[in-house]
């Protein structure tokens, strides 16, 4: 059950409400997905968001993001580029 934690490169800006940030990331197919994440999950100084790494291949990574992306059809499990994942 224990998953490896990692950090995903993203763009971070102020959230709609206190205690949260607006987070924008890119999936491996080049599309942008975005969500609101609580402060505990975000490193705004380095523009990183904490994720659980579910699977790692040489060029792509399957990650579980801290909250559901708003874009239709995107689940919390997202395939991203390995070079965007730290850790």
């Amino acid at each position, binding site marked *: 059950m224990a998953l490896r934690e990692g950090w995903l490169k993203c763009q971070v800006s102020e959230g709609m409400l206190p205690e949260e940030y*607006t987070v924008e990331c890119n999936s491996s197919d080049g599309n*942008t997905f975005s969500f609101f994440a609580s402060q505990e999950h975000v490193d705004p100084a380095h523009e990183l968001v904490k994720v659980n790494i579910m*699977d790692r291949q040489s060029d792509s990574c399957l990650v579980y993001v801290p909250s559901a992306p708003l874009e239709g*059809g995107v689940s919390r499990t997202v395939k991203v580029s390995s070079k965007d994942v730290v850790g």
Partner: protein
Amino acid sequence: MILSNSEIFKALKDGYIIISPAPDILSLDKLGNPFNTTSLDLRLGDTLSIPIKDQPFSYDLRKGGIASFLKKMHERHPINKEGGFTLEPGKFVLSNTMEKIHFPITEGGPCYCARVEGRSSYARIGLLVHFTAPTIHAGFNGTITLELMNFGNNAIVLYPGDYICQLIFEKVCGEIILTPSQFQGQTTPEGK
């Protein structure tokens, strides 16, 4: 199975449910005790997110960057501690709970989740506190976003710190599977 107040308190004490600031089952503030028989009341935070104005656009969730767009179309508004915020009939705003909730996923230990519900007093005057997403999943960590809508005929004054919603807690039954490899060999829910 829904947790009783004593089970909620036990899970809080054991660290399987973390709420900050922590509710105290023995103390009473001016608004009473947050523990009901099978739920815990949570308070309204001190900030609203209000749509900037009625603008002629459509949300298209198939387009990227929705979070930034939503942020751009709303503005933060502190709720006046003395005068409150008047939510007019038919109006919709976002806010969050004063309390942070954390349901850690612990290996070998129990896991919990919850559903956020309204309170009957606010329901009677037409206030909706959430729409179709009441589930606070195991692993969640943060404040709970409230979707506040006045369905009544009269304005409703909202104050920060008022008990505005309640959490119904449930114990998760069975192991939580998070990695695809844990499903290995299963092509159907029955494992065939």
